């Protein structure tokens, strides 16, 4: 409960730091998502009221950009690049390996234990290292299906260690 209030205060501060400007809506949503890990519906409504536009408009923006998620994501985000350079160097087998390992599908990107979310992105700008995977904010180049399973294993043990 307390945690919830702290987060709400943070959102208020974010809005204030952007002077509640409509033109800063995307930045406000980005910073809010950083607080929650996603964009909860009630928070979107709150933002709409605070900057004086309709909740539908805010929802429209939040759903338009692929960076925003309206549902909770896993603790660790695995982003497999499927840009052109990575695609031709074999990003698909990597994706398949992750899906198989974590029991995910195209329609189910987050594991049941909320530990992992698999996303695809088109180009991370590190094309020289294709295929590229970003796991928990760390960039891995020249990835292989076996390599990504190693990374996942490490992240899993990091959790149990804690």
């Amino acid at each position: 409960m307390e945690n919830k209030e702290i987060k709400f205060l943070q959102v208020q501060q974010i809005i204030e730091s952007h002077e509640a400007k409509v033109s800063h809506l995307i930045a406000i949503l980005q910073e809010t998502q950083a607080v929650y890990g996603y964009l909860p519906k009630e928070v979107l409504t709150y933002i709409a009221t605070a900057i004086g536009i309709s909740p539908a408009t805010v929802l429209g923006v939040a759903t338009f950009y692929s960076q925003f998620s309206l549902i909770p994501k896993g603790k660790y985000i695995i982003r497999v690049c499927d840009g052109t350079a990575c695609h031709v160097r074999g990003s698909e087998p990597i994706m398949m390996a992750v899906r198989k390992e974590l029991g995910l599908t195209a329609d189910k990107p987050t594991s049941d234990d909320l530990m992992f979310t698999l996303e695809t992105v088109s180009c991370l700008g590190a094309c020289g290292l294709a295929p590229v995977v970003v796991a928990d904010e760390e960039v891995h180049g020249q990835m292989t299906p076996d390599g990504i399973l190693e990374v996942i294993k490490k992240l899993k043990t990091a959790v149990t260690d804690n």
Partner: protein
Amino acid sequence: MLIKTHEDLKKLSEKAKAALEQYKSRILVCAGTGCVANGSLKVYDALVKMVKEKGLLVEVDLVEEVGHDNVGVTKSGCHGFCQMGPLVRFEPSGLLYCKVKEEDVEEIVNTTVVNNGVIERLLYEDPNTGEKITTQDENPFYKRQVRVTLRYCGRIDPENIYDYIAHRGYRALSKVLQEMTPETVIKEITESGLRGRGGGGFPTGRKWSFAAAQPGPKKYVICNGDEGDPGAFMDRSVMEGNPHSVLEGMMIAGFAIGADEGYIYARAEYPLAIKRMRKAIADAEAHGLLGENILGTGFNFKIHIKEGAGAFVCGEETALIASIEGERGMPRPRPPFPAVKGLWGCPTIINNVETLANLRYIINNGAALFKSYGTATSAGTKTFALAGQVQNTGLVEVPMGMTLREVVFDIGGGLRDGKKYKSVQIGGPSGGCLTEENLDLPLDYDELLKVGAMVGSGGLVVMGEDTCMVETAKFFMGFVQNESCGKCVPCREGTKQLLALLTKITEGKGTEDDLVLLEELAQNVKAGSLCGLGKTAPNPVLTTLRYFRDEYLAHVRDKKCPAGACQALKEYYIDPEKCKGCTVCARVCPANAITGDKKQPHVINVELCLKCGACMEKCKFGSIIIR
């Protein structure tokens, strides 16, 4: 330190240059996204520590005097050869080490820094000849390049404004403010023949003159750093490697059209580029090179950064404006063009990062020199992102008009793993796939349009014999379909149908009628879409249909994928001559599709086979093939 006058800037520039020249040696460790991912920061830290231990390190900010025997260690931006990273370059010798690891640092310091020796194993080895290459300039990847935009990327410390100033940084701005008028600036840029590097290739000078003719007082300059083409990273490299050149370009543009405020729209996927741009803005402001009354001339300019949020269509100029205004990034009809009615209804010019980074060169060296590179209608150099099945991947800046063959074979070193060349896809999702016959085509805006492709942002994907062209067309269609903003029906629904048709063909369920439909639909999407995304989305389909029709026919008539790439058309087969009957494959097969007695040739039941490839991977005798 405030730089208040042209004289101040000139003096500082000379002082910083002199300081640089006093180094005995300067070591530049690449700290671009690619090399950082490969551990270059560890290399940097270890180098600093060891050079310091030897008592050789000097940390200067280039405005102090430096002694003669000293060594500088600096982080640089991307050199464009990330595949070989982490890269470490030595000045003034130009020696380049590749794939440097933390463990190599001790030897580097002892051998190279102290004794000027060369460590063979860290040199680049030409994959075709096995020759070891010592300096960056002799490296076949760099030798044929002409670096104008990327000139200082990898050569300077992007986080140190004095390093930029030492290399004539902000002198073009100073020249513009001191000696030129908006009219003469526009004239110079027009004469240089510079065309937009963001995709359209629109003449920059002409675009500016429209905006300059509009009444003020409020106008804007937008730097387009959205770089949506999946596989291109030149803008990232410039923003990370030489951020001040982008700011200087924006100010020159601002002066020319009468704007006093600018926005940089950068992809959220480029955190390092955004960080460096932010630092550059803060440093330029702190030195009075950005803000009010710049260099005492009364010229004011402010720059803000806006982060994108993951929508390809936001690279389109009107969508980008909508996005800066905080809305959904949907394209708006043109006219009115942004030059007339842009950001918040004010006259606005939008230029690509690379376009802007060229401006200082043109102002400093004159339109004639810039124009001396390139072809009659495509002046200057262009950076291409070379990717795919080539030996050398990376950023390649060449004079326009160089042939594809030179880029792919001389600079790219030809195909990797002995593969046979098949096609090159140029221009990203809006571009096209070209054939062997097009290899001698010059890279020029107009020549490429003639064959159905385009320069676009400069993505160049080389494909070998095992790439399926239908799958390639499907890949790009999947991308644009996903990124269509949904405003117009032909784009929104048409791309969906095109994708469905292509999927059907790759699954071996297509017919020859589907090919007719595909072509017809592609033309309709082109004709009926509002923005460039929809207008160009069918290009990969149309060019593959035009140049690789046989491959489509093989898919629909014979239900075969000649490249052996389409999963559904693959047939795993055990060569009875080669099979030793070791039973390994039968044990790994998840579908129990393989049968056979020990020491007897095994057989795959195609009805049961899931085409997972596990058997092929495990067979030590290479007996399993795809046919």
